[in-house]
């Protein structure tokens, strides 16, 4: 795409009516988008030709995904009389008159054995040429995931970055005195409860392969770390030592975790194999050392410590040695999280009593506050690095929010009737 139309910083409020279909099983998150990129790509998505009685048209799911990224303006197509489903049916001047730069068409056809063939084409309206397209042979239950995959392909083709629409997120809900660990699609749809408890659950962490979660549960009246398979639902105790067991974080190869233990004293960082063997103490301070995360190259543990008198982020080699301070501005910088490319660090910064998401470029040390909320916690990067999801509080109500790494696009995800907290964005699918 060569020319992009300048768009005002549009304020969009998008409520996903489709989410109500999933509400019967579990209350789903409602997503609200505020802001957008300075320049958005105008795209038209023609409703797909349907094979039978699908409950919703996947064009609306694709459109909602692209709109939520803040990088696209999804155009209303109903004014165009000819709604094409094949390339031969496309009359480009009609779409050019809508000022569309890109056009998506597609269809769903029934196959024997209760399967479906989903095909789509992405067209460049300006050049009047096909950009990409694909066919999927799926079961009806895979329609929604297929819509997210198509949105990912469109996103990648037009922005040059990988899309995250087919990924999953995890978070904790608290409703009354009931805590639930949930896993949902990145758009908040299809939430599944993987653990519920009358005692707190905190700090969920995705294994790099996306098949397991480590988390901290207080069901034994103290913090204990578990690892749970999302495919089988089976779980095991990773760490239940005397005192606290908390803050699990997976190594990039998924073989080890950094955890925090107390053993009757202050919190210190340890390393442990994913099967619970070979426990090894990494930090040895009389201060608080907690919230460890691995650098993407696997060589460093970044962690929060108050060894210098205030809570700051430090790093230490996974082989041990001296700790080096990483954050210097202000008196409270905690909860470090690496961008997927390893070049920057998101964290929570307290400034004049306000807790906000900040981003620091590691090479230059340059720091930028991204969020305009004031009770922020638990930042988590989307696997493409474009968005940072976090927990915050609005009117005493726990909600999730997301902000783009450039600070321009903001989303809010809330659940009716409950608090939502502790988000963690899962890895790219397999």
């Amino acid at each position, binding site marked *: 795409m060569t020319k992009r139309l300048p768009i005002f910083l549009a304020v969009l409020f998008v409520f996903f009516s489709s989410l109500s279909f999933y509400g019967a099983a579990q209350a789903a998150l409602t997503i609200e988008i505020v802001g957008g990129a300075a320049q958005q790509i105008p795209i038209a998505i023609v409703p797909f030709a349907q094979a039978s009685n699908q409950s919703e048209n996947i064009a609306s799911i694709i459109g909602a995904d692209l709109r939520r990224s803040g990088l696209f303006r999804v155009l209303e197509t109903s004014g165009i009389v000819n709604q094409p489903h094949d390339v031969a049916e496309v009359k480009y001047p009609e779409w050019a008159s809508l000022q569309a730069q890109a056009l998506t068409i597609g269809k769903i056809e029934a196959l024997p054995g209760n399967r479906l063939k989903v095909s789509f084409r992405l067209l460049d309206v300006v050049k009047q040429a096909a950009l990409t397209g694909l066919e999927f042979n799926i079961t009806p239950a895979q329609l929604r995931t297929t819509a997210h995959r198509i949105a990912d392909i469109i996103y990648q083709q037009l922005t040059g970055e990988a899309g995250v629409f087919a990924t999953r997120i995890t978070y904790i809900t608290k409703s009354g005195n009931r805590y639930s660990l949930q896993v949902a699609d990145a758009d908040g749809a299809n939430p599944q409860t993987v653990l519920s408890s009358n005692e707190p659950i905190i700090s969920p962490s995705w294994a790099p392969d996306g098949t397991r979660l480590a988390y901290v549960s207080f069901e034994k009246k103290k913090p204990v770390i578990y690892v749970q398979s999302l495919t089988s639902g089976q779980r095991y105790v990773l760490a239940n030592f005397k005192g606290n067991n908390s803050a699990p974080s997976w190594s990039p190869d998924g073989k080890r975790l950094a955890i925090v233990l107390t053993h*009757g004293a202050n919190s210190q960082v340890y390393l442990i194999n994913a099967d619970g063997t070979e426990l090894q103490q990494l930090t040895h301070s009389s201060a608080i050392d907690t919230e460890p995360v691995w650098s993407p190259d696997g060589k460093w543990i970044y962690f929060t410590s108050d060894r210098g008198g205030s809570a700051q982020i430090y790093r230490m080699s996974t082989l041990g040695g001296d700790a080096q301070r990483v954050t210097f501005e202000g008196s409270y910088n905690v909860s470090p999280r690496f961008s997927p490319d390893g070049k920057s660090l998101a964290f929570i910064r307290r400034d004049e009593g306000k807790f906000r998401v900040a981003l620091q470029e590691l090479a230059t040390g340059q720091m930028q506050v991204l969020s305009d909320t004031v009770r922020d916690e638990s930042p988590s990067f989307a696997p493409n690095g474009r968005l940072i999801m976090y927990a915050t509080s609005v009117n005493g109500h726990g909600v999730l929010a997301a902000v783009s790494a450039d600070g321009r696009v903001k989303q809010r995800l809330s659940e009716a009737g409950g608090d939502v907290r502790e988000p963690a964005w899962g890895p790219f699918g397999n």
Partner: protein
Amino acid sequence: MNKHLIVGILLAISLAACSSKPVKEAPKPAVEDKSPKTTQTAPPKAPGPAAPESATTKPMTESTITVNPLKDPNNILSQRSVFFDYDKDEVKPEYRPLVEAHAKYLLAHPDAKVFLQGNTDERGTREYNLALGQRRSVAVKKVMNLLGVQDKQIETVSYGEEKANANCRDEACWKENRHADIVYQGE
């Protein structure tokens, strides 16, 4: 030991009060009364209200024995929370008697075990608050250690901000959330 004597004396007094009862009932409660070791923790005031309750000695004996000092609102051992200043883990002087009383109880009951549970207000991140709460439980443990309590009777843990009232907007509310609690095993 002298508590046994007191109980015995009280029994004798109440027996004397039950003027017209047959004398042969007397030895039975007196014998029972010697065996339970828990009598030593009975507070002095308990026999008062119990005495008029019955014409026989048996109910009074039971109520005297079963009062748990850890639950007795008139006993300092029923106080379980040490409160802290913002971002601080110092055990303030006004909480010394409370911690000392529990230390003495633990020394007198080597089989008793306590969880010291640290708590913070909800400001800040959950894991960092978990670590701050832990520091508070450790601060209480150190006081107990200095009084001679062994680590094997104590487990320090933290709930961080998980039990805090999340709707606080001022210090009067926040300060109620910053405490370390003494919880005996089995409670």
